């Protein structure tokens, strides 16, 4: 229950923060969420990771789908030299998840 609450809170805080702040505000968002809902380090890492994996991956997928992947085709070629929209969505999800997971982990050590 706590785990799901943490995932939801991290997701909400991240989306809200990114409306006004740079992309890396997902890190302080996950950090805060982990302070508000303390968990074991392993769970904290996982909840932060999953939260942003879902938010960034989901948003990217939603946007790309409505775009019929026009942009994702081109950008995946540009960055990865391979034409694979899914890879670009996966990379987006992974980056969000890693940053948020680590921030969440860092906060989890501060409280028991």
């Amino acid at each position, binding site marked *: 229950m706590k785990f799901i609450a943490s995932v939801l809170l991290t997701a909400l805080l991240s*989306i809200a923060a*990114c*409306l006004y702040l*740079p*992309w*890396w505000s997902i*890190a302080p968002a996950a950090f805060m969420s982990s302070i508000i809902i303390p968990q074991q*380090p392993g769970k904290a890492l996982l909840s932060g990771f999953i939260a942003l994996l879902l*938010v*960034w991956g989901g*948003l*990217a997928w939603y*946007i*790309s789908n*409505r*775009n*019929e992947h*026009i*942009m*994702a*085709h*081109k*950008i995946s*070629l*540009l*960055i990865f030299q391979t034409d694979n929209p899914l890879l*670009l969505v996966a*990379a*987006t999800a992974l*980056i*969000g998840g*890693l*940053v948020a997971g*680590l*921030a969440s*982990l*860092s*906060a*989890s*050590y*501060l409280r*028991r």
Partner: protein
Amino acid sequence: MRILLSIITAAVTVTLIVILNSTLLLPAPLGKLLSPQHGIWQNAEAVDANFSADLNFPQLAGKVDVYFDDRLVPHIFAEQENDAYFVQGYLHAKFRLWQMELQTHAAAGRASEIIGIKALKHDREFRRMGMGYAAEVALKEMEKDPAIKAACDAYTAGVNAWVNTLTESSLPVEYKLIGYKPELWSNLKTMLFLKYMSYDLAGGDDDFEMTKAKNYFSTADFNLLYPLQQDSLDPIIPKGTKYEAPKLQPTAPATADSLYFNDKQLLAMMNPSRPDRDNGSNNWAVAPSKTKNGAPILCNDPHLGLNLPSLWYEMQITTPAYNAYGVSFPGAPAIIIGFNDSCAFGFTNGGRDVKEYYSIQFKDDSRKEYWFNNEWKKTDFRIEHIKVKDSLNYTDTVAYTVFGPVMYDKSFNGGIANGNYYALRWTAHDPSNELRIFYELDRAKNYTDYSNAVLNLHTPGQNCVFATKSGDIAIRTQGKWPAKWKGQGDFIMPGTDGSYLWQGFIPMDETPQQYNPERGFVSSGNQKPADSTYPYYLGRNYPPYRGLIINKKLQAANNITAQDMMDMQVNNDNAFAAQAVPLFLRHINDSLLDNEQNKYLDMLRDWHYTNDATSNAATVFAVLWNKFSDTVLADEFRNAPAGIMRPFESTLLEALHRDTACKFVDNIETVQTETLTEMATAAFTAAVTSLRSLEAAGKLEWSMYQATGVRHLAKLDPFSRLNLPIGGSRYSINATKPDHGPSWRMVISLTADTEAYGVYPGGQSGNPGSRFYDTFVNHWVQGRYYRLWVMKPGAVKDARVKWKMRFSKA
């Protein structure tokens, strides 16, 4: 312990963020770029995106309604004249901001700010060419004209109304990828854009290359290699036209022979960058007597660099004063090529040399004084501060003389110049107000309006074609053309003697022009505007072939329809090959060829001189001609200085037509005298070797060999459309080249309702993530057109209206 762990993981997190926010370890700042709320995903426009909006701006005087059709072409209806330009600026910025800023940065010599030290040479060259100076002069001149100033002010306010809405998320994707932010627009930027067009269209010269040629070859050889007029020339103004005695008779300086024509001093290596020589175009208009429905038809296809986003943006502007439709330049107000309710207008490049270099003698290296008309004159210095990304800023000091900026000196052009200084005299530096021609043409009602409008066009000079619904057709090679004595400015001129300056400009009523000619059509394809009976010197650098073929087709045609004209614009007939191939077929000795070589020769035999996309013979000819001219001219040019002028292909071909034993054919490095048969057969054998590997690589088909593409302005391949299956050639009306070609094809039948067709190789949106980014490219490749819809004010319920933007006064 836990605190320490927390600090360590926090540090790891911060490090990861820094890496993902920069290019320290990654090729791109992936975190910033891929954040769905900030990065490239924000530019991935939904395919069913809604462009409708209700907008309020205090700068507006009244209401403006904009209706977008299914091709995203805006139809602007403004209550107030200048509000239309505000909205035009707003829409240009909304759909094309990045290219507008890139082009004006390039014009101003500010590319280093964005891409760093590798652009410094470009920036110095453009600043030394006086581009910024020219734009400032033009701005001052424009501001004297209240109507144009108001138009520019409104346009600039419109651009900035959009720029001010931008956030990190809504920036065009190129800003995100390259990592910078747009600045506010200004009227100066509009002037810089126009100067960029002047550079592109009237920035060509070959004075250094020709000077080297003059110094290297004997006078007889020089005249043979660089003739003043091609035998096949069919000028814009037909041969046999009678010209009045000129009002102005420039005289060559007394020292011209000794100090200019026969001055053989060697010139150091100098290879300035050049705009594309084939920046040309076709335009023509046919009279009612030659059309099926009795309405004149006007056609235009300007040939320019093929880029995405396109140079052009299509739109309709309707105000109480006028109703114009056509293409506009993102970066400037007005419709540039198009039509209104009374007439249609179009342009091809004049291509005349309006750019001279003078050799300057400074008193010393300080460049403070130079010798001119037997005295030391003081220079002005213009100090150019160039910001360079990730590097120290660069300061360039350019000396200005009576001619203009001293473009080349010891500090520029690699320091290998022979200690000489070269000043640039260019008409683009002179005050002029080019926007007024478009402002007036958009509102023109008749031939008199056109005649007055075109007088405002100074640089780049153009062949302006015109037709009215009342049945008039006209063409005029309009520009600020220097009246030159024969040979003036073909080579670098002495800068110590004022008698080498231009002595005046061709009076506007003496520019070559035609109004309702008897033959029932006017046309231009960048060929020489008039033959040698025209009383002013016109120089030598004009391509003859497209003009030739256009005139031939128009002469033969009757009962012409708009469809005929569209077919003609995409016609792939190769006028050069039609003259060259029969000569080769007569002289290649096929008994010396093996079976495989004969297979390729048969392709040439069966060819109808048409560069269709799938033609193999077109490739055979192109390769053969390259081998042939390289072989034939190799001996003549073996020891020539680098960067010397090469003769045009027409020169070699026409010399052979006059005399198959002409001087070029013999290899001067051998004892025996070579014949055309030997040279042609050898060239063909060599060509087959290349053709064989081309065929093996699947590149024998013409479109595969030529590989025409429409390239993104930052040369990003995924944003480009490469290897397009399109026919045409530089010698065809469909004048395609690898990165250059018909940038807007337009056919206007001036019937009561105006039957208009057009297409450009791009799309209305500059966003690579939009479905409207390259919408028209396939149509363009296939030679198809869109019927242009001139929306009537009440037609808001028409099925073609997809979105509506309403602009009101706040």
